[in-house]
């Protein structure tokens, strides 16, 4: 039941992701909301997320977003792996450090996925703009979380 809830949430986030992409893309910005949403779920989870859960969730996202099969499966496995390893270390980090981690990981996602799905028109401008945008946005969310904890507290 919990897994179905996650899948349903990711479907909705993916739809929102597509809507946002059409707005941000003309400004050379790619905001990987589905990837960040999943990362947030893994980060906030009380227990470690299994590799098979990460893999099949990624594969499902590949199917619904019509990208190459395996693309999101790899990234979801990688981010789950890193978050599982550093889950306890994150507690020693400041908000800023965590924001930079998620901002940079989403930039890595943008860069690597663009290298696979858009190699002919790969743009460094898009990569740098996306990195900047994602890091700033993560910091803004962290500030929101610090000042308005009631509204941003996860209820998963």
């Amino acid at each position, binding site marked *: 039941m919990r897994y179905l809830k996650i899948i349903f949430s990711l479907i909705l986030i993916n739809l929102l992701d*597509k809507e946002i*992409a059409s707005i941000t893309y003309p400004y050379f910005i790619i905001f990987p909301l589905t990837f960040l949403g999943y990362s947030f779920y893994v980060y906030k989870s009380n227990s470690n997320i299994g*590799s098979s859960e990460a893999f099949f969730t990624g*594969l499902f996202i590949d199917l*619904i977003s*019509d990208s190459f099969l*395996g693309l999101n*499966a790899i990234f979801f496995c990688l981010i789950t*792996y890193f978050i599982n390893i550093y889950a306890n270390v994150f507690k020693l980090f400041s908000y800023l450090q965590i924001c930079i981690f998620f901002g940079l990981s989403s930039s890595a996602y943008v860069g690597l996925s663009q290298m696979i799905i858009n*190699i002919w028109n790969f743009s460094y401008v898009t990569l740098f703009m996306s990195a900047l945008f994602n890091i700033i946005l993560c910091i803004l969310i962290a500030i929101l979380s610090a000042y308005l904890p009631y509204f941003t507290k996860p209820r998963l």
Partner: protein
Amino acid sequence: MARISPTRGQKLIFIIYILLGVGILYLDIISNNFQSVKNGFKSFKISSSYFLNQITIEQIKKLAERSKSKKFLIKENEMLKEALDLSYLNNYLISKENNFYKDHEIIKYAAQDKNYQSSYKIAQLRSFDPNTFNCCDRHRMFVEVISDNNEDFNEFMVFNASGIIGQIIHTNKYSEVLLLTDISHYTPIKSSTNDFFCNAQGSGRSEIIICTYNPSVEDQEIIAGHIFYTSGLGGIYPKDIEIGKVDKVIKIDSTTVELEIKLSANPVSNDLLGVIKY
């Protein structure tokens, strides 16, 4: 509560899954092994969204129409719009004054040619992702060809009122259209003077295809604004149909020049499309 660090076995399973993902990704990029799975899922997605749309949004719309007592007018308007779209498609194919043809008299020869099929099938646009179209290399759309028979529409040309937009590459309940701008698509084209031929590759950008040639081999110099036509050499598209105009001429080095050709046809300009086999 502290989370337990993954054990060596768990890390190993992660690595196995990542390698499996890399394998699947590699297979998907180099082959069409997963195409049927993807198309099946796509068909399911389109059908279910169509069904959900019919039972929710359309019902609300109908209710609003009834309350306004304009149902008849709306229906008539829809019919007129459809008839107008059809007339645009017909015009594209049969009009002697057609601007798309290089040779305006071509229709006379076509009528004499026994291989020419005057009829074409109508297709409705069912799915098109504008984000992928604007950002990425894969430019595809899904259409539903209106036909009673269970025909295979592979290699059928797809056009709309503004010109050729691509070809069907996979037929299921919905047919997948490979657009001219997809990087895996090559369109055989020629210049208006019939002395310059080229295979123009899709650029992965909307409305642009790219033709690369060696200027030391070609006598003719191509400048911006030059019109290109289909050469008919690929066997999919008929010859002498306008494809687009040269937008930019980029000199890569002394032996390579790239022509960026802006297409005449926009794939999203109309929901109603024509499908024909030449």
